[in-house]
């Protein structure tokens, strides 16, 4: 292709091809280094071994990914609902915010790894515990985003409702909540990655003691059996899972925001 043509219309192929080339180069280097340096397969298996393990364990991995996805999605859904309710509670009075907000920040700063064993003790090696861990870890962005969305209402819109003597409930339902929807979606985008992390961390602690078998459980089990290639396969599945959940939220984001304002950005005069 001549440079003139390239200037006229920027080619799309480098966007896809270049990352693939980088990926292949990394895989090749990894494979060759492992072989040349004679690294033991328990420490670092070559990518070819990882690939064959993924193929061999595909159904276990898929089942695990499906279970982890359910936990993460349930955790995300719980944080969206509970987080939005807490934000609505906060939006009603500055006194409520001043009294309770420090505890929300506390929830954000408490290391989930430290409280997970306690949660296991209280709620058992169950699906619900994993959902709870996922919810706790992903709730903060929802609370903070939705609270700010509910409170940062255009002054004229607030006055419009006051002029009509709208009560607190009408203002919440017809103004504050609809205005906070874009912020909720923004919060969901941040939280969905955290929800996956939460689900996997929860699964580490649940381990393979219960009937539960998510990706986190698979990783802990393979670690015990020194099956490193299989562990790496599970890690790749975790990453893909995060991407799947993020893509779902992105689609939801586009769909809702388009419906909200019919594809046009928020009010800008002229």
């Amino acid at each position: 292709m001549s440079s003139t043509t390239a200037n006229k219309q920027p080619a799309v192929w480098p966007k896809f091809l270049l990352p693939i080339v980088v990926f292949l180069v990394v895989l090749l280097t990894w494979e060759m280094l492992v072989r040349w340096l004679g690294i033991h397969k328990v420490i670092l298996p070559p990518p070819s071994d990882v690939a064959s393990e993924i193929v061999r364990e595909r159904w276990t991995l898929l089942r695990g990914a499906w279970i982890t996805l359910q936990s993460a999605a349930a955790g995300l859904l719980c944080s969206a609902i509970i987080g939005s309710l807490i934000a609505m509670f906060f939006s009603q009075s500055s006194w409520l915010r001043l009294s309770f907000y420090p505890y929300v920040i506390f929830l954000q700063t408490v290391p989930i790894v430290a409280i997970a064993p306690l949660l296991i003790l209280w709620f058992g090696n169950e699906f619900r515990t994993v959902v709870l861990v996922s919810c706790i870890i992903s709730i903060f962005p929802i609370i903070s985003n939705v609270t700010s969305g509910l409170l940062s209402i255009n002054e004229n819109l607030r006055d419009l409702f006051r002029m009509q003597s709208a009560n607190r409930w009408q203002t919440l339902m017809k103004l504050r909540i609809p205005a906070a929807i874009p912020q909720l979606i923004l919060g969901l985008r941040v939280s969905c990655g955290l929800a996956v992390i939460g689900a996997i961390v929860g699964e580490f602690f649940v381990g393979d003691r219960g009937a539960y078998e998510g990706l986190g459980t698979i990783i802990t089990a393979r670690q015990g059996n020194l099956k490193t290639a299989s562990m790496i396969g599970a890690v790749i599945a975790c990453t893909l899972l995060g991407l799947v959940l993020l893509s779902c939220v992105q689609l939801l984001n586009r769909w809702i925001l388009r419906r909200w304002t019919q594809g046009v950005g928020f009010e800008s005069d002229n």
Partner: protein
Amino acid sequence: MSVSPHDQPTPSTKPNAAQPELECRDVAMEFINSRGFAEQVLKDLNLRVSSGEILTLLGPSGCGKSTLLRILAGLLSPTKGDVLVQGQSFQQGGRTLKDRLSFVFQEPALLPWRTVWENVSLPLQLRRKQKTADAKESIEHWLAMVGLSPKDWSKKPGQLSGGMKMRASIARAMTTRPRILLMDEPFAALDDVLRSRLNDLLLKIVAEEKCTVVFVTHNITEAVYMSDSIAIMDQGKLSERLEIRFTEPRTKELRSSPDFSRYYATASASLFRNVTSDE
């Protein structure tokens, strides 16, 4: 043409002059600024607006026009003094009194997630009257009156031009059939052609509905064209009031008439004479 100092308001020549539609008595307003000091925005201000009158508050930015308008709307409580709507204060009249007022903001202030129709129906919905038989008729009447065609009614504000948004905003203000319309620089962001079209639309609405209008602007042409009287404001005070009495009807031709030029010159001179603040 009559030019009179405002300190002693001139009695209006319109009917119901005895009982002004809207009245400010010694209204003062103080805000606490960011450094913790009290800042006086309005100083012992007296104002009478007669029924059916279009009064324009004209003055530089920061002179207290918008604060006064928000006090008249009951959105702010003055530090001192009283606002009377048809002889009653907001404390006495409560919600019924507020229902007689409508406010048009500087920006159209439409809810971006609602269609034009839903936006215009909002005040009736908040008053729980949107399901009454004549509500639909009233909403459609006002949408058509402001010049929005039925194909625009289902559009969202993001799909409308600035002028159309402002038309929807005016329709929304009128659905409740207000007796008093308060407007805070509603056409400031529009170009001259659109502004003069909307000025004419507003005059038409006011003539039909016979409502009283308090209009804030810093555009002298608009003030002269629209008003029965102009109150010049500076540094929280009403410094002068000009009564405008055109002999010919308010049409496009009026703007190029000698009468209009005279009023424009008087208003302009009065503004520059009275405005002492720099910014």
